[in-house]
């Protein structure tokens, strides 16, 4: 305990120097900007700044890069709420209720709640890292292919629970998502699947192309159909900040989201994404009026935003303690540190305590800066919505094309986006929710990889999934979730029978 406190004060001493505060501010500001701008993400930004980072102190470099990373998480939710374009997979859920709120003229409270929830989650996650990094890192090591497979399976079942409306449609969308995820090079043999000889499809369907098509362009088409021109985006801004009633309503959601995000974020690969999806599902399950979810419930913004920010923060644990990056941005940070002669890994905490604790402390300071930066900006962002829709939609389509192209500088991705737009439009017309599709698309390939890896290791013996205790736990949880979904359906059918 005393140890941790003295370490935190060491960290604050490092992070609160004028120079490091400045780099933290630069990082969080740049992060917010690239998070808001579609088409340039944290990976590109960190890559471009890398040569500059060689000339900085390693601590300052890492503080700045970390700021870009979590700052972008903040900024990403802004576009998800305002124009329904989730720039990152983890903000897909935010757009469900967030964008509905914007349409009802409550964009201000949605953005404000996202910022406050994220700040709270960021603060808690900082302490989770400070106190729990070494044991949590050990937990992450327990996760082998079998455990990952069962976790993903559990996540997919949750995706079906998550959907509103017809369960059959939700299952269908998950399956379509899985099929989309199959395209590309097979992980075991490198053989091309469903690429039809197109080089640009060799790595599969680009996530950004898929999400921009379904959430961005298809949505524009649906809006244009409506004769009233304004297409549902409210003319009035509404209050800029969430009311006290809103905040009170959200406190439990933020707490649950933070807890889920802090734990799931530790798992390398997809942790933050699973966190936001499962936080949303959990809220829907515990809420007294679950029907309001998907129609602009502020809790549907608060919980996933807290979860993905907490997850973004705790995903630094495997990087700092094991040297294992959870995503490409972190792989870049490791690269930059290596040029300074520091390889993140088990020895960083003991060999370079000022680096480890300085970065941890800077995260809290950075989160504070983000709130200060973002709350006044909320009014500005919201004013964007006043723009007539006839001017908005060409801009949205333009941004979607630029955003999709810049990921890989690959024209095929734009063609893919156009094709999926048609499909997405059809889905919206048929009232099929796209969120399960996105989750199926993201989790499917990871599930397949881990399934095949686990079976390669066990020489084809499927009992590996039930003999590992953690894996067994997730399988039981998945089965329980399925029962929860099935139960009301059974009850309903019984009631129908009774009525007849």
């Amino acid at each position: 305990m005393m140890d941790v406190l003295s370490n935190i004060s060491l960290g604050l001493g490092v992070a609160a120097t004028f120079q490091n505060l400045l780099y933290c501010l630069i990082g969080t500001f740049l992060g917010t900007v690239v998070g808001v701008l579609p088409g340039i993400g944290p990976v590109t930004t960190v890559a471009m700044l890398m040569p500059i980072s060689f000339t900085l102190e390693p601590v300052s470099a890492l503080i700045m890069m970390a700021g870009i990373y979590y700052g972008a998480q903040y900024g990403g939710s802004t576009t998800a709420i305002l124009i329904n374009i989730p720039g990152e997979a983890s903000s897909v859920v935010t757009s469900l209720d967030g964008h509905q709120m914007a349409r009802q003229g409550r964009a201000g409270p949605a953005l404000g709640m996202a910022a406050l929830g994220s700040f709270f989650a960021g603060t808690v996650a900082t302490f989770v890292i400070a106190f729990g990094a070494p044991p949590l890192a050990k937990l992450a090591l327990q996760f082998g292919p079998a455990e990952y497979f069962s976790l993903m399976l559990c996540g997919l079942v949750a995706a079906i629970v998550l959907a509103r409306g017809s369960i059959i449609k939700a299952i269908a969308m998950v399956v379509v998502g899985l099929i989309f995820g199959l395209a590309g090079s097979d992980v075991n043999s490198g053989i091309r699947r469903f690429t039809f000889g197109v080089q640009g499809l060799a790595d599969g369907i680009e996530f950004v192309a898929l999400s921009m098509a379904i959430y961005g362009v298809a949505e524009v088409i649906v809006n244009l159909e409506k004769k009233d021109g304004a297409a549902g985006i409210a003319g009035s801004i509404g209050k800029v900040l969430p009311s006290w009633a809103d905040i009170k309503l959200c406190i439990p959601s933020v707490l649950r989201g933070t807890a889920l995000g802090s734990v799931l974020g530790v798992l390398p690969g997809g942790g933050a994404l699973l966190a936001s999806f499962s936080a949303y599902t959990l809220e829907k399950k515990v809420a007294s009026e679950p029907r309001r979810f998907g129609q602009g419930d502020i809790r549907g913004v608060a919980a996933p935003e807290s979860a993905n920010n907490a997850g973004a923060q705790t995903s630094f644990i495997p990087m700092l303690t094991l040297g294992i990056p959870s995503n490409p941005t972190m792989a870049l940070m490791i690269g930059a540190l290596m040029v300074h002669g520091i390889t993140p890994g088990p020895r960083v905490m003991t060999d370079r305590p000022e680096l480890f604790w300085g970065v941890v402390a800077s995260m809290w300071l950075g989160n504070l800066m983000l709130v200060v930066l973002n709350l006044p900006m909320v009014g500005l962002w919201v004013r964007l919505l006043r723009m007539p829709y006839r001017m908005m939609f060409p801009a949205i389509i333009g941004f979607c094309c630029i955003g999709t192209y810049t990921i890989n500088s690959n024209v095929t991705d734009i063609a893919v986006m156009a094709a999926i737009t048609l499909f997405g439009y059809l889905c919206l017309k048929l009232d099929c929710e796209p969120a399960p599709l996105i989750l199926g698309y993201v989790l499917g390939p990871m599930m397949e990889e881990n399934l095949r890896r686990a079976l390669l290791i066990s020489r084809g013996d499927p009992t590996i999934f039930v003999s590992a205790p953690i894996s067994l736990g997730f399988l039981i949880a998945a089965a329980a979730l399925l029962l929860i979904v099935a139960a009301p359906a059974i009850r309903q059918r019984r009631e129908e029978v009774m009525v007849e």
Partner: protein
Amino acid sequence: MPFTLSRRALCSGLAASALSTAPAFAEDFPTRPITMIVPFTAGGAGDILARVLSQRLEPIWGKGFVVENRPGAGGVIGAVATAKAPADGYTLMIAPSSTMAVNVSLYKTLPYNPATDFIPLAIPARTTFILVVNNNLPVKSVSELIAYAKAQKEPLAYATAGPGVPHHLFAELFKSMTGINMQQVPYKGSLPALQDVIAGHVPLMFVDLGPGATQIKAGQVRPLGVSTAQRLKELPDVPAINETLPGFDVASWQMISAPAGTPRAIVEKLHRDIATIMRDPALQEQIDKTGMSPVPSPSLDDLQAYVKSEIARWTDVVRKAGIEGTM
């Protein structure tokens, strides 16, 4: 492949060679920013190397130096983009041995020819691999591992960063030289694979020095041998696999190249300038720290010969592993 170059590239190539008759041309070069294509996403070894080099080359050339990531299809998309780029010295590529020497036998069809579509300019760095095993595996040396593997009924699993990458090929070479039976378990990248070796989900792997060194020094995995014929100065106690298995001497490398048809004067200038910065001890130290070993620049003819000999060598390994034309 004579006609894969686009007409545009051909025209500008002709224009460039017409210009190169003027002796002042190479002296003036470059007059605008040079683009270095990295055929992988940001953050990989070649990408980091390109960004480190850009810092040194910008002051010499007095022009911008743009690192452009063109990822996709295991480096094929970036390589094709480079091969089709105007051969004027303003588009270069930094690509690993897989792009330049391995894919040609591994892929059923490869839309570029590594031996004829590029002019190699430098091999700034190569990466040594280390054979590591989980701490609980009861083997302490390469010969013990061979004996252990031969005593097992089931083949030993080994982790790789994906099919066809050096991690895979080095292990296949090890297999064919020792006659032991091993089964590949592919991951997406070196670090997740290493994580599972540390945790004991997979018993062993060939890991690149960068991610491997820290974990070895921290005692998280046990090193059995290095892939090059000489021991590494970072890990002086780790023997070379070569000491047990004569003839085992492999490493992956990063090569800078220009599209075929780039005027000789410009090629010579680029080669000379890169060789100059590579002699700087400060740069060598910087490359060392990223887990790669700087390589002194061989002559242009030696580079060309090296690519040909590496293609022949890896074609043989790929064939023996039974993965020729599978991708």
